């Protein structure tokens, strides 16, 4: 759960294993190893396994906060498919992810190419660019809430200082301006992380490849498109999956900045789950929506892996 959806699950590697000694010792070892891992397995069972099964079970019920649940079969799911807010939230979250992702990826790619060389300056800029990433989305959203305020915010101050006086008063209550603010905030906050991933991918491309290309007369732009991008493919796949997943699951920024305005048009899928489970206390319906989100995201990730996979594999 930690990072949303990592692209690559590492293979458990076998090289560091104990050399097998006496049989009795090895059996003791295996009991000890299991003992070490057991607390985590039990913990994962309680706080991951049970909730996962419970989510499916709840989705088949009318499940109020207090009182007994009633079995309704697929009732919640048919409600969901007919629910206009949910349908809009799905389109909105997907659309948001699709607009947001290319922007943040392109900017991160540019920044990674800028700071990938080894120098004191690069190291300094890397540290700066990653700073917003360690702040929470919650506090960042409140910071931006003030910053874009029409009467008191810093954006207004800067715009006035350079002689631009636009009417910002409706930014967070109108659809397009509100979404633009959230996209800008999200890029600001996450671009450093994606930059870091891509920079690390770029550093693993050997200098010799570039030297050979330079000898063959390829300029920097050509090198970027014909060497860097293709060799960066595995990193890019991962970055895309992260960005799309985070985009589809967006909540904090929209909840704090636009809270659904105008007319529920900026209600994301997670926001709608939140509303149904914890504002209306219709937990069965919230669970059904959660099941749909899990399945939908799994499908999206699978399609991305298929589409972005190296054709030569």
């Amino acid at each position, binding site marked *: 759960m930690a990072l949303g959806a990592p692209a690559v699950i590492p293979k458990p590697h076998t090289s560091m294993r104990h050399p097998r000694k006496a049989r009795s010792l090895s059996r003791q070892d295996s009991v000890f190893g299991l003992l070490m891992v057991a*607390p985590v397995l039990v913990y994962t069972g309680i706080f991951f396994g049970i909730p996962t099964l419970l989510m499916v079970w709840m989705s088949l019920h009318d499940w109020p906060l207090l009182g007994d649940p009633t079995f309704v079969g697929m009732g919640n799911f048919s409600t969901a498919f007919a629910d206009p807010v949910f349908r809009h939230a799905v389109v909105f979250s997907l659309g948001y992810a699709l607009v947001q992702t290319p922007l943040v990826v392109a900017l991160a790619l540019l920044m990674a190419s800028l700071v990938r060389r080894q120098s004191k300056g690069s190291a300094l800029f890397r540290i700066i660019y990653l700073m917003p990433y360690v702040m929470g989305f919650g506090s960042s959203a409140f910071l931006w809430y003030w910053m874009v305020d029409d009467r008191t915010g810093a954006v207004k101050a800067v715009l006035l200082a350079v002689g631009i006086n636009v009417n910002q008063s409706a930014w967070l209550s109108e659809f397009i301006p509100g979404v633009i603010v959230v996209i800008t905030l999200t890029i600001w906050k996450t671009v450093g992380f994606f930059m870091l991933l891509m920079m690390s991918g770029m550093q693993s491309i050997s200098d010799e490849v570039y030297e050979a290309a330079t000898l063959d007369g390829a300029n920097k732009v050509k090198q970027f498109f014909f060497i860097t991008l293709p060799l960066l493919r595995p990193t890019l796949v991962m970055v895309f999956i992260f960005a799309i997943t985070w985009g589809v699951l967006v909540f904090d920024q929209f909840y704090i900045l636009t809270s659904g305005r105008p007319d529920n048009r900026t209600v994301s899928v997670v926001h709608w789950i939140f509303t149904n489970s914890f504002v209306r206390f219709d937990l069965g319906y919230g669970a059904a929506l959660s099941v749909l989100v899990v399945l939908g995201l799994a499908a999206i990730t699978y399609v991305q892996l298929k589409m972005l996979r190296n054709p030569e594999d």
Partner: protein
Amino acid sequence: MMKRLSLSNVSWWVVCSALAIIILFPIIVVLLASFKTIGELNTYPPTIWPNEVTLRNYVDLDSTSANVWRSAWNSTVVTLGTVALSLVLATLAGYGFARFKFRGDGIAFLVVLATMMMPFQALLTPLFVVLQSMGLIDSLVGLVLIYTMYVLPFTIFVMRNSMSVVPQALIDAATVDGVSRLRILGTVMLPLCWPGVVSATLFAAFMAWNEFLGALILLSSQENFTLPVILTTLQTGRYGQIDWGILNAGVVVTMVPCLLLYLALQRYYVSGLLSGSIR
């Protein structure tokens, strides 16, 4: 040649600095705003630099109906609890996965990592019911339990990786000396794996300090609110009027500890992020 090189160098500095200024801008302006008087914060046109510096916004953080310092304490408790619980669990499991062979170890490790693919947001509805049955709704302990689950796969992964590369000879030497397996963990492994411990700690701490949705759902009484949640009550304001001074000071109190921790330990944070997401 020399001239072209230095020119491109200059443009590199210009572009990178411009990006740095844009990225630092929100952080700097909110820091400045948090020291402005309430009068200045409400004047039009707004200022960037404070005309008059005051600590009123910080002093008053606990005098409104929403007590931000109390929330800072709650956030500290939740963060320390999450770090402690997840580190104990992840250190033991990392040791087990890195150094011992047992039936099903590969599958167990995959299962632990696979939990990362489940969106946390989707699991909150059933987790609420699980915690309800344990009587842990509106409790910081409940929050620590779910945050620990959230950070476990990553912290286990980091701990296992750093323990895998400890030379076997050191462990053999300790074993010959009659040191028990559990003591080896404390005396040989952990002293050598502290960069991994720092990475895991930072990851867990940032997550627990900043998490919003879970805390919003699980905490219902204001005296239990963590920092990100208390900010929602400041945003609404009393009498519909937002006290920008308090809100900005609240944002600063939430973000500054993260920034300081990151700046002090960024090397470990970055290597942890990279080892956790690539591979």
